[in-house]
């Protein structure tokens, strides 16, 4: 179907199901139960899942296929956001021109950075991309927001003000980002079934559809001759040179494509919430997408999306569990036991969410070298082994170990 083999078609269908049914799947607990804390099916977080999924898929096209580890990818996301908000300020709140410009600007930016950075490889490449991104961040945070030439609005973040031109804005259109009048932050349906609540948000479904499109494109790219060439770059660039092929145009193309994915994610972030902050470009943000990709499984198709979901879930759900919530959970225990349990769990939730995340990074990478995808495969194999013995490992889903330097 759609030029995919049956396995990839299955994968796409599964992802499509997960994305479209997310409002149900992410809200497994009734609203009034004490576990409702773990529900993630509210618009903002669902949007983030999809957007950072796109970001990570794009990053994986560069890192997973070519092995080039960019430490400055957040710059493209940030630039995309700024471009989109400027579109809102100048044209109108319609998200289409904003997203298109975000992709184009991020693409141009990545041509520039990619062309320079790809002259080096390995860690030298990583540091070059890091340097460019950090420079962009520092300038956006301060110099580019001075009152005379305010391109970024610095610390506060670029926003739309009432006195902005918005030349295409007309009466009757919503005063928030919209798709031809269809406001992004509105919900087209809110369901209450027994104790459950499900929210179907316009913005989320736009993100989800775009996610599916770019996921499909990524599959096609992975399976194309171009994708094969990129893998060749990763496995042995020297050999590639000897065959008379110049790998540079291929890696540059991958870099630009992945930069455009990041720009798309940035544009969508702005479309869901019309504010672009400079922190989006900081090295920690670049590091986050690296972590998402490795955590999920670099070089696999679905891994980065899982990794993105994993990290965003922690950031948004675990950070909100406070002592009050803990006391509610353990209220069934006798008083002393309750306090003791709260005392034990307390350092790992709420303001300690970073700690839990750090521990999980270590556990996952130590015990599941292929990331979350490998975890999934192990479980699947366990079940399959019980059934039949037809276990054919898929080479794509087992990223090869790259030799390390001291060998």
């Amino acid at each position, binding site marked *: 179907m759609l030029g995919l083999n049956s396995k990839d078609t299955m994968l796409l269908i599964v992802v499509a199901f997960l994305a479209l049914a997310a409002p149900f799947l992410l809200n497994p607990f009734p609203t009034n139960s004490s576990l409702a804390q773990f*529900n993630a099916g*509210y*618009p*903002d*977080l669902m949007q*983030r899942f999809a957007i950072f999924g796109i970001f990570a898929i794009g990053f994986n096209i560069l890192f997973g296929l070519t092995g080039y580890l960019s430490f400055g990818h957040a710059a493209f996301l940030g630039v995309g956001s700024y471009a989109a908000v400027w579109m809102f300020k100048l044209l109108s709140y319609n998200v289409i021109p904003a997203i298109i410009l975000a992709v184009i600007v991020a693409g141009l930016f990545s041509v520039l950075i990619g062309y320079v950075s790809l002259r080096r490889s390995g860690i030298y490449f990583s540091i070059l991309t890091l340097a460019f991104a950090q420079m962009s961040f*520092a300038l956006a*945070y*301060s*110099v580019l*927001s001075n009152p005379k030439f305010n391109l970024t609005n*610095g*610390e*506060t*973040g670029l*926003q739309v003000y*009432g*006195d902005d031109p918005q030349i295409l804005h007309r009466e009757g259109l919503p005063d*928030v980002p919209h798709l031809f009048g269809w406001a992004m*932050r509105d*919900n*087209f*349906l*809110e*369901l*209450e*079934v027994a104790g459950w609540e499900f*929210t*179907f948000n316009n913005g989320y479904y736009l993100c989800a559809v775009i996610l599916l499109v770019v996921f499909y494109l990524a599959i096609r790219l992975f399976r194309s001759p171009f994708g094969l060439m990129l893998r060749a770059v990763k496995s042995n660039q020297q050999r590639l040179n000897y065959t008379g092929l110049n790998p540079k145009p291929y890696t540059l193309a991958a870099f630009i494509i992945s930069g455009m994915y990041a720009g798309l994610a940035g544009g969508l972030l702005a479309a869901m*919430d019309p*504010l672009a*902050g400079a*922190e*989006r470009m900081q090295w920690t943000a670049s590091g986050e997408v690296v972590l998402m990709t490795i955590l999920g499984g670099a070089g696999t198709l679905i891994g980065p999306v899982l990794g993105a979901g994993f990290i965003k879930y922690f*950031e*948004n759900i675990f*950070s*909100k569990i*406070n002592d*009050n919530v803990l006391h509610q959970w353990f209220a069934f225990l006798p008083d002393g036991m309750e306090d003791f349990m709260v005392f034990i769990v307390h350092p790992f939730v*709420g*303001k300690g*969410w*970073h700690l839990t995340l750090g521990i999980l990074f270590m556990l996952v990478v130590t015990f599941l070298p292929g990331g979350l995808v490998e975890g999934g495969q192990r479980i699947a194999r366990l079940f399959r082994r019980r059934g039949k013995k037809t276990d054919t490992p898929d080479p794509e889903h087992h990223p090869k170990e790259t030799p390390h330097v001291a060998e």
Partner: protein
Amino acid sequence: MSKYNVTRRGALKTGAAAGAGLALPTIFTASSAHAFTNEPTGSTVTLGFNVPQSGPYADEGADELRAQQLAVEHLNGEGDGGMLNTFSSKALDGTGILGKKVTFVTGDTQTKSDAARASAKSMIEKDGAIMVNGGSSSGVAVAVQGLCQEAGIIFMAGLTHANDTTGKDRKANGFRHFFNAYMSGAALAPVLANAYGKERRAYHLTADYNWGWTQQESIQASTEALGWETVENVLTPLASTDFSSYIAPVLNSGADVLVLNHYGGNMVNSLTNAVQFGLRDKMVNGKQFEIVVPLYSELMAAGAGENIKGVLGSMNWNWQLTDEGSKAFVKSFGEKYGRPPSNSAHTCYAQVLLYADAVARAGSFAPCAVVEALEGFEFDGLGNGPTLYRAEDHQCFKDVLVVKGAENPTNEYDTLEVVEVTPRAQVEYPPNHPMFGGDEASLGECNDGA
């Protein structure tokens, strides 16, 4: 049996939902069921406390959270009632707000606009918070204020000192109890001129972002009005930790006062470095060299340790104040947590009370009704003397404290001492002041959302 209640913008989706195999669901949409965003329908009402819990301001966020928790207890009639007993408005009776028990959710702003908005959104979308309170940075305050305006709930900023929050970025749904950079300048300048003379040459080190700029502008304007001269204003990157290369040029600049427009860790480090370079023992132009830190917080004072002795600055509130409200608050906070509250904790506590009181007086949780109740509201007994929530820009006007680092602290909390309580009249300014966006700045329309 099940109620079946269809009221929606198109039968198509209803059909689709039913088709999805849901047996007789109760279906409704927000627009028809609620008069405004997150209207509390049950027996409780949820407030959102959005404070930094990770990153450099985590301790400040923790203190804000303590105060907010205390305020919720007092609203629900638990504990000793704190400032509820001294508050001039008596609309609250310790039975929650409008008879609904107060609950709260917490979130982590990470002191980043993006993360703060994400956290506020989850409170609004997931937890049904009716208002958002707290925060520890002006960038975050402006960003979250904009979000709450769009979503149609009330936002009350925590520690935010930049003029813009109630200046060019003011919003109808947003309120600020904390003072601002202009007020710091207006309160501090006369004290500085008194203590150090009118012929001083000041050297400014300014954190290179929005808050730093507005504070520098305010302090420069108010000190120059009293005869001081500004030698130089140097912008320092927020990420700086070692300020030596910014401090060294001060030595030979001919300046005899150093103004540190820094906050938090930046200020702790720049002040420590300045003291290391012997600036405080220096004589320039025949005068003792002085350092000024226009905005103080208790945590900064604790972090800077010995270095702040005698250094002048300003604050919104201090636990050593002796009015009835402050005493009641310090007592109930101190007994619960074993430490005196910080000034950002005080602001967050006061705002929870002010919000609850406004709802009680308005008789409604609807944001526009609350806005109306708060605009032009005059009150007393919350620690800063008679206070006005000005209708034009939603800024609180009250006395401002000029403080200095304690020379002989008797305990670990006694780091700052109050030098002067500057009366409210001296720090007032017209709502269309050029530093606050001029005539163009406007609150816009209040938004009930939904």
